[in-house]
């Protein structure tokens, strides 16, 4: 299990190759990379706040839950904080398994929990004005797909 919370930029390819090289017995590796989206071309930058200490613990919990639930060989979660430019990679998860479906489902699970259960908050500066990104009802609802208690964590 590899959990990283960092202000520094990262190259998804280097992370993927490092993750893959360390595997033994894997047949399937799935990666998800989140990029800073700039749909209207108006985003100056994004700033991500987090809760040091709790962040690492929350990510470790999410990764452990995935390892318990699927036959995974390894899991990686990397998430940046601080200032990011449009198109910068924000975060990445990777899963490895002997089986394709397990790798896909676990990556999807990691993303659902990471969105709503890890203490990150995105702030976007658009046209010189800062605004906090709102959580969506869909993100919260997505957790019910996995139908367990963790979906009810928090209020």
């Amino acid at each position, binding site marked *: 299990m590899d959990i990283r919370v960092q202000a520094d930029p990262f190259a998804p390819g280097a992370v993927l190759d490092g993750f893959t090289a360390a595997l033994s017995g894997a047949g399937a590796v799935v990666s998800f990379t*989140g990029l800073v989206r700039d749909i209207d071309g108006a985003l100056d930058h994004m700033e*991500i*706040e*987090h*809760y040091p*200490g*709790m962040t690492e*613990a*929350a990510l470790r919990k999410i990764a452990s839950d995935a390892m318990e639930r699927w036959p995974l060989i390894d899991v990686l979660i990397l*998430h940046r904080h601080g200032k990011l430019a449009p198109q910068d990679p*924000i*975060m990445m998860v990777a899963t490895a398994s002997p089986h394709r479906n397990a790798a896909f489902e676990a990556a999807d699970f990691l*993303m659902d929990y*990471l*969105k*709503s*259960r*890890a*203490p*990150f*908050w*995105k*702030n976007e500066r658009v046209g010189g004005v800062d605004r*906090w*990104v*709102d*959580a969506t009802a869909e*993100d*919260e609802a997505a957790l019910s797909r996995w139908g367990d208690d963790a979906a009810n*964590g*928090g*209020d």
Partner: protein
Amino acid sequence: MKIDVRYFAWVRERIGVGHESVETDAATPRALIEELRTREARYEAAFQDITALRVAVDQELVDMDDALGTAREVAFFPPMTGG
């Protein structure tokens, strides 16, 4: 008891500090919020809609009505937007 109270995102901005030490006998996060609201307008501004807030006690997500017990650190923040 003395608790380190932390604020994040717009909760932090409205209150004006990232964390502070609070002397309280509140039994739950909800009771702690009600106590803080009576202090100053900036707390009222941050805590006016409690359903828009989440809380962590000793760095674990809990419900607003869970017992604070011997908590050392309580954090209030809006729903998380990672990923």
